[in-house]
């Protein structure tokens, strides 16, 4: 597999990583994802890594970068389903992914994104309403 599929769900993008990531795959994902966020005007990105068993410092860094890039493009990122071993490895590597939201599974991750969007939606509507009113 030379590409990880990116699925669109409403205003969110859904990425499920079901193979072991190698460096090129991670970089391709980073490219594809940023492209898609811009193209679809996505407000949230959910990355499910429940099948990911092995990470190294590079993959950890790419995950962090993807989150930071999405934030710049005004899309929230949630990483879901991280395995205990992967979590321990990342912490030992000193990659605690600050700024990345996490959730136990895809369902909770979606709730989290939806919640963020709702809150923000209200804020935008209010902000929009103000200058008109």
């Amino acid at each position: 597999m030379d590409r990880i599929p990116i699925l669109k769900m409403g205003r969110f993008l859904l990425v499920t990583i079901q193979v072991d990531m190698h460096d090129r795959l991670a970089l391709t994902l980073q490219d594809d994802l940023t492209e898609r966020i811009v193209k679809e005007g996505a407000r949230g990105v959910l990355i499910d890594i429940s099948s990911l068993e092995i990470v190294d410092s590079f993959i950890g860094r790419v995950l962090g970068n993807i989150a930071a890039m999405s934030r710049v493009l005004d899309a929230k990122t949630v990483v879901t389903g991280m395995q205990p071993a992967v979590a321990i490895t990342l912490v030992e590597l000193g990659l605690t992914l600050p700024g990345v939201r996490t959730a136990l599974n895809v369902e909770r991750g979606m709730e989290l994104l939806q919640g963020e969007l709702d809150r923000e939606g209200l804020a935008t509507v209010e902000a929009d309403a103000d200058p008109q009113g």
Partner: protein
Amino acid sequence: MPDGTLLPAVLAEDDGRLLDDWMREQLASASVRRDLMSETELRQQSAEFLGAFGLAVQTGNFRSVDGPEWAPVRDLLASVSRSRALQGFSPSDTAYFIFSLKQPLFTRLAARATPEQLASEAWTASTVLDRLGLYITEVFQKSREEVIARQQEELMELSTPVVKVWEGVVAVPLIGTLDSARTQVVMENLLARIVEYGASVAIIDITGVPTVDTLVAQHLIKTVAAARLMGAECIISGIRPQIAQTIVHLGVVLENVTTKASLADAILVALRATGYTVTRIASRS
């Protein structure tokens, strides 16, 4: 002349008086532990050793005790040493089992050897016994280390239960000093349970942790970070006043971690975070 020719003869022609002398020697010493081992048991061990030792010296190999001809002696010493290690003998008590044989053995060698022979005879016998003495001490040490390792393992197992407090809330009460190995076990256990119970809040209660130093704090922070990566929020509770002071004096930063003084407070926060409230039902009296 091969050295130590008299030693096999001395042992082979012995009529049991060597054992008696040896027993007398052992019993006279302060290292005999009548509280731990009976005289009959000691006599039996000594007799078995003399038997095996006698057979081993017949082979004429005094250069080393590592060869196959010394295997029965080594096995016997290993079992003696191991049982003594478990019974609580000291290393020197155990080694004296071998060294106390020197006196009666040398007396017999002296009786048979010519003065010229005596020096080399004594040297040979002494070397063999010294090697056996070292061997028995080594085995003793090894058995003690095994005991310690096993105890550590047991301690590790009983120390980290992860409790489900409520739907979506787990707690792990930590008791005793935290070192790297234990923290690793705690961390793995906690993360596994978070997945198993689908918990979104985990409480780490350190009421039972006697001291918190920078290393322990570091371990706690790591655990919290790992849980967060999996999507669970962590609360550290049970921080005693003394420990709060230590943490601040050490300059440990717990800024990104929710901390509570008591487990009750932590549970309340956890329940709120998962969408529950706790209400007191008015008493009907």
